[in-house]
């Protein structure tokens, strides 16, 4: 399964004050505090860890069919870091989720996988909106995702349809039939992103 998250760093800096009293304590473990304080850009590490937790959580929701707000229960380790590419692991209970994050000047995008094997039948992509996005942005992400899927599976986009359930989990349909897959969509500020794995 896959889960993803995108963070617009400009919007995050403007709309979230992670420096306020109590914020870091509610979200990050001791080990994660150490990552933040020892990194040369603490703010970047805050949002990197955040997006790792968030993308792992999105798999958790698909697996357990329950939503919850428990950032401390998703515990991050960073394994490798090279030129803005971070690989890591998020542990929740007995489960491990494996994350890949890409950091650029004003964006972090992360995809989490429920198992370690690199799958060939998975795709990820993203798009940028001119402003901070609006009510139509969600639809734009879906359109971009569907056109990518249609190329990937070599089928016509008009036969593809995406529907979200009450937990906000997206499901993909081909000619009215549910296509066995795990899908994750994310939108923050000027950025949208999607990840999918076909089973």
């Amino acid at each position, binding site marked *: 399964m896959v889960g993803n998250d995108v963070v617009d760093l400009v919007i995050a800096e403007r709309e979230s004050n*992670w420096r306020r009293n*109590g914020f870091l304590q*509610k979200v990050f473990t001791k080990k994660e505090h150490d990552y933040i304080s020892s990194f040369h850009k603490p703010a970047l590490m805050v949002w990197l860890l955040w997006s790792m937790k968030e993308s792992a959580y999105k798999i958790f929701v698909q697996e357990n069919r329950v*939503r*919850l707000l*428990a950032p401390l229960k998703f515990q991050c380790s960073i394994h490798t870091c090279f030129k803005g590419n971070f690989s890591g692991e998020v542990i929740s209970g007995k489960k491990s989720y494996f994350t890949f994050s890409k950091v650029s000047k004003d964006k972090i995008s992360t995809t989490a996988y429920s198992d370690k094997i690199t799958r060939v039948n998975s795709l990820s992509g993203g798009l940028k909106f001119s402003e901070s996005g609006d009510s139509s942005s969600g639809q734009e992400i879906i359109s971009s995702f569907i056109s990518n899927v249609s190329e990937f599976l070599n089928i016509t986009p008009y036969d593809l349809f995406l529907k979200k359930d009450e937990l*906000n989990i997206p499901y993909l349909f081909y000619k009215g039939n549910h296509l066995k897959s795990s899908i994750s969509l994310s939108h923050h500020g000027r950025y949208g992103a999607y990840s999918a794995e076909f089973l």
Partner: protein
Amino acid sequence: MNNQEIISELKTIIKPYAQDQIALENISGSTDFVKDLKINSANLIDIILDVESRFNIVVDDESIEKMLTVGAAVDLIRQKAEQNGRE
């Protein structure tokens, strides 16, 4: 404080974070912070911190888990305020 008063206080706290102001006007117990008010998850932490300082309570990590709707927040505030009163 009764539930209606708590909801009204919550509305003031939530206002700066809610992306959907129309949904905020029609707030009720079943209003979902993420699905209805389109609040981003980082701002949910802000709301919890604001609730703690406004109602003078501590929301422990177990209780935070359920804070997905306005109704859940109201229950939690009442429960914690009662505990405070007994101490």
